[in-house]
């Protein structure tokens, strides 16, 4: 064999047994090829072997260069979810767990509000859930007490607990911290990629104006009435309704919209699980809109329940 000839020549030149050369050659080639073979087998990992912490990454962005005592400031939290995976909304729906975002703040800083973008419907047979894929932006507003010492620095930490799912699900958590200088002057705006956050802003629901709403429960149905004030109308094409209040509705049943005398009626199905009815139902309504480049706009609904 050619290989053995080469080995013999080399070994004679170096006064080493050719068998040692051959042996080394085989060991070397195995150590090069074997890991590839292992890797190929490992690529076909089942969901459980991937670490939940690798699947969701958190980052914080401050639009201001520093913060000023006695004022409010905003922070953007971006979660980047690995492709093919999703996490859940405040109301996860039929399956999953709500994503929990909590903040560790120094004394003198308080969370005033945190905005969630409207979710996506995640459909499975027999189960409908609500969640997010890809990049998700949350906007939080904090207040700084007037007595906050300055000049100094404030460290804020966001802790996120989630259930990340593809076919299988993995519970996980991640956290991210940001330290902001605290100065007595009015903060300057930072140079940031404007389109990144402008688009994210379009996904937050606003309060619905121009309509009075009311919910009535009739046996298996939940009827939600929208009464326009001053002749306003709703474009119902592609309208989406997301329940924020849990346990009341069957999320898989298609909603039925009706228009009667200028007012609108949304008929939904009650869930099989009987639940205690609250005085107000919270929901998010997404409607077609030519006001935004997304073509859609979301509205926060607080609907009083009639037979409460």
């Amino acid at each position: 064999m050619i290989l053995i000839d080469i080995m013999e020549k080399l070994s004679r030149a170096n006064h080493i047994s050719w068998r040692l050369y051959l042996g080394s050659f085989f060991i070397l080639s195995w150590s090069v090829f074997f890991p590839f073979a292992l890797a190929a087998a490992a690529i076909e990992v089942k969901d459980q072997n991937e670490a939940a912490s690798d699947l969701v990454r958190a980052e914080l962005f401050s639009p201001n260069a520093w913060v000023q005592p006695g004022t409010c400031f905003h922070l953007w939290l971006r979660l980047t979810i690995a492709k093919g995976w999703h996490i859940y909304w405040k109301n996860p729906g039929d399956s999953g767990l709500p994503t929990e975002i909590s903040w560790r703040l120094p004394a003198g800083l308080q969370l005033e509000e945190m905005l969630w973008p409207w979710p996506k419907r995640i459909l499975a047979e027999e189960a409908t859930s609500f969640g997010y894929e890809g990049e998700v932006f949350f906007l939080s507003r904090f207040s700084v007490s007037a007595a906050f010492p300055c000049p100094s620095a404030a460290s804020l930490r966001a802790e996120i607990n989630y259930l990340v799912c593809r076919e299988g699900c993995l519970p996980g958590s991640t956290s991210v911290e940001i330290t902001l200088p605290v100065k007595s002057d009015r903060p300057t705006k930072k140079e940031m990629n404007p389109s990144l956050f402008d688009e994210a802003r379009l996904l937050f629901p606003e309060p619905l104006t121009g309509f009075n709403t009311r919910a009535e429960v009739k046996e298996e149905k939940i009827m939600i009435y929208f009464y326009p004030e001053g002749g306003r109308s709703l474009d119902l094409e592609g309208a989406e309704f997301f329940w924020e209040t849990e346990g009341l509705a069957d999320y898989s049943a298609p909603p039925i919209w009706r228009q009667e005398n200028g007012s609108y009626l949304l008929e939904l199905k009650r869930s099989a699980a009987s639940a205690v009815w609250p005085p107000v139902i919270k929901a998010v309504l997404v409607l077609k809109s030519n006001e935004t480049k997304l073509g859609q706009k979301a509205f926060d609904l607080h609907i009083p329940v009639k037979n409460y």
Partner: protein
Amino acid sequence: MRQPGLVSLTLMAIFSLLVRVGAEVKVGEKAPDFTGIDANGKSHTLSDYQGKIVVLEWLNHECPFVQKHYNSGHMQKLQKDYTSKGIIWFSVISSAPGKQGYCTPEQALALTKEKEAAPTAVLLDPEGKIGRLYEAKVTPHMFIIDQKGILVYNGAIDNIRSTNLEDIPKATNYVEQALEEILAGKEVSVKTSQPYGCTVKY
């Protein structure tokens, strides 16, 4: 008042036919009958068990919510305690072949042994017939059928939706509660609850 047009009426009629009618599985009504094959190849028909209390437990050992109840030993304890009182307990696997949780009969038997589970039988439902009949949404999704064949419970295993083992002793176990009530001849107090878990992989 404008009358709805004929077209929209027809569309609404077609639409309402397409809407899933959940009347099949209603607490307080007769539980839908089915025949399932267990991991030993034995056939079980629900109506044959009339006179006994039957528990249906939708199962997928790879789901973290199911793992919470099995890794704690809690599900197995319920199975042992209640089957020893004459209750029939079926663990049902409705995962389709190739999907998470799917088991061949040999795998199902091995898992039952490994987890020290004690159901009366593990029903293999890879075509999802029993799952769809009961509209099983998640694992674990629990159903209880009384001695008269009436569905008396449909919902979650307990009242704390989480994957944490530590939550089990803090929670109200709806299955345990309902079974105790039925055995005492009382009405089930919590007949339904929102089930939690991973979606069933039809």
